[in-house]
C-alpha cells in the first residue's frame, strides 16, 4: 500500500472513544488474505500467540509477516500456509534446538519467503511508518550484503555530507499486539520492553490488541505514564489471559520451556519435519474448540509453574 493510501486509511477510520471489545474470532477477521501484518513481541517474548492461533484456525493465506525476530510461531505460520513471506532480522526456533528446520525448508526451497533486514533496519522501517514519513536515513547495513538484498538506496545528507542508507517506511495493513493491560477503548499498557509494538501500532492501518486483562478506563487515567499504545491507534480489543502461551509475557509468565522443548526436540527428531508440525497444528490449533481448550491441552500445572517463574518481584 502506498504512503498516501496508508495515511488515508488512518484519516478515514473512526479513531474516537468507543467500546472496541470483541471476540478473538471477530477481531481476526480484520486480517485479509495477502495482508501485510506486523506481529508484536520479539523472539519468544510477548508474541501474540493467541491471535496467531486464531488466524491459523481461520486459514488466512499468504500473509507477509513483519516481526523483529521470529521464533517457533514462524514454523506454524509457514506450515499452515498463513505466511507467504517473513520479513525479519532473525528466524529460528529457540536457542537449544538448533536452527529451525522449517525455516530452512521454506527459505532454502524459495529464498523469497524470507526477507532479511538488520534489527535496526526493520525497526526503522516500522518507525518511519509510525512517524508518517516514507523513508528514514541510517548508518546500519552500509556496505553489507543486506544493503543489496534489501534493495536499499544510498543517500548523502545535504547538510553534513554524510553517506547513509535510506530505509523505506512500512505501513502494515494490520498490527497484532498483546499487552498486559488495556481498557475497552484500546489504551494498552505494555510492561517490560515494548519491543517494536509501539512503532507497529502507529505504523499499521489497523490494530488488533489482545490483552491479559481488561481494566477500567479510570485505572488507565490513574497511570497514564504506563499507556504506550493510545486508544486511537487500536481497532479491536480482546481480553485473552495467557495470550502468549507457550511464549512468555513479561511479569506474568515465563516461557513454558518444557512445552517448547517437547515441540523443539520433537521437531529435531522427526523424520518428516513438515508432517510433525502439521500434526502439532492439528492437535493444538485446529482441534480445540476455543483458546481455553487450547490451554487445557498444556494443563494447569504448566500455567501455574510459568506464572510462578514469571513473577518479576520474586524474592
Amino acid at each position, binding site marked *: 500500500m502506498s504512503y498516501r493510501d496508508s*495515511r488515508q486509511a*488512518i*484519516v478515514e477510520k*473512526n479513531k*474516537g472513544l468507543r467500546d472496541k471489545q470483541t471476540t478473538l474470532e471477530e477481531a481476526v477477521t480484520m486480517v485479509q488474505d495477502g495482508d501485510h501484518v506486523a506481529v508484536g513481541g520479539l523472539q519468544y517474548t510477548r508474541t501474540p500467540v493467541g491471535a496467531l492461533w486464531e488466524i491459523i484456525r481461520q486459514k488466512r493465506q499468504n500473509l507477509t509477516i513483519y516481526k523483529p525476530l521470529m521464533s517457533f510461531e514462524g514454523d506454524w505460520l509457514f506450515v499452515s500456509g498463513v505466511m507467504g513471506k517473513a520479513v525479519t532480522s532473525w528466524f529460528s526456533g529457540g536457542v537449544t534446538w538448533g536452527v529451525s528446520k522449517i525455516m530452512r525448508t521454506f527459505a532454502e526451497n524459495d529464498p523469497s519467503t524470507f526477507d532479511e533486514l538488520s534489527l535496526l533496519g526493520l525497526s526503522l522501517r516500522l518507525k518511519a511508518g509510525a512517524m508518517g514519513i516514507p523513508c528514514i536515513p541510517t548508518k546500519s547495513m552500509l556496505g553489507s550484503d543486506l544493503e543489496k538484498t534489501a534493495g536499499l538506496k544510498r543517500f548523502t545528507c545535504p547538510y553534513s555530507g554524510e553517506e547513509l542508507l535510506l530505509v523505506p517506511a512500512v505501513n502494515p495493513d494490520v498490527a497484532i499486539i498483546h499487552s498486559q493491560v488495556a481498557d475497552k477503548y484500546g*489504551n494498552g499498557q505494555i510492561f517490560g520492553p515494548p519491543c517494536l509494538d509501539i512503532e507497529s501500532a502507529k505504523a499499521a492501518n489497523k490494530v488488533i490488541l489482545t490483552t491479559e486483562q481488561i481494566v477500567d478506563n479510570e485505572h*488507565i487515567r490513574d497511570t497514564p*505514564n504506563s*499507556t504506550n499504545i*493510545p486508544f486511537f491507534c487500536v481497532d479491536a480489543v480482546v481480553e485473552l489471559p495467557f495470550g502468549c502461551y507457550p511464549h512468555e509475557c513479561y511479569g506474568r509468565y515465563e516461557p513454558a520451556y518444557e512445552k517448547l522443548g517437547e515441540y523443539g526436540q520433537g521437531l529435531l527428531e522427526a523424520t518428516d519435519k513438515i508432517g510433525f508440525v502439521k500434526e502439532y497444528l492439528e492437535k493444538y490449533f485446529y482441534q480445540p474448540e476455543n483458546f481455553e481448550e487450547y490451554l487445557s491441552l498444556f494443563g494447569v500445572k504448566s500455567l501455574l509453574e510459568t506464572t510462578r517463574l514469571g513473577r518479576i518481584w520474586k524474592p
Partner: protein
Amino acid sequence: MSSYTPAELCVIMGSRALKDGQIVFAGAGLPLLSAIHAQKMHAPGLAILFEVGGVAPRIGSLPRSTNEARSVRRSMATPATVDMMLYLQRGFVDVGFLGGAQIDRHGNINSSVVGPLEKPKVRLPGSGGANDIASSANRVFIISYHEKRRFVEKVDFVTSPGFLDGGQAREETGLLGGGVERVITNLGILEFDSQTRSMTLVAVHPGVTQQEVHEKTGFELPVSDALEETTPPSEEELTALRGLDPERKYLKEGDF
C-alpha cells in the same frame, strides 16, 4: 446578540462543527471550550489532544495554556511532544482547531512577525504547533474575531500554511493535510472555494449584514450563492458553555 457574547457565539459555532468520534488538536481558550462543549452536547466520543502530551484528558479548572499539568489532568497517556506532533503527520488528527490570528484570503496564518522579518514592526511569539497542525491535520478550523487588521489580503509571513497562493499550490508543495476547512468568526462562517481556494462567506450570524462583514474584512470577500443564516445559540447550549468557564475568563464581552 443581546443574550450572548461574540466569544460565546463563536465557541458554540465551533462546537457544532465538531463530530462525535473525532480526534481534535485544540489550542487553549475558545477552541478548547468548543471541543469540551461538543463533548458535553453531542460528541461524547470526541477526544482532545494537546501538544504537551495530553491524550483525552478530563479538564477540570480551565488551563491557562494547553502546555501545563491542568491540560493533562486524568489524561489517558502522556506521550512525548514529538510523538504528539507526529500523530498529526501520520493522519491521526481529524481536526486541528486554531485560535485567532492574522489570516489571509487563502487561509494562511501569520503568528510570527508583522512587517519584514529583517526589520520587524512587531515580533510575535511564533508558531508553536500551529504550523504542524495547519500542515498535517486532516482539516483545520479557525476561530477568530472578525476585524480588518486580522483578515488581510496577504499575510506578511506564512507561519502556518492554508492554501498558500490558492488553486493547487498547497497540494503541489507536497502537503497532505486538508488545510483550512472553515473559519468561524463573530460575524459569520467562511469556507474556501474548491477551485480558487479563496475565502468565501457561507453564513452570517443572526442580525449581521453582509455589509458589516465586508467592512471588517481586509480583502474583497466573495459571498456564496447559498448564503445561510446560522441558528442562534440555544439556551441549552449557552448554559452548558457557561458552566465550563464560570469565571468568564474567555467568554466575556468584547473581542478575543
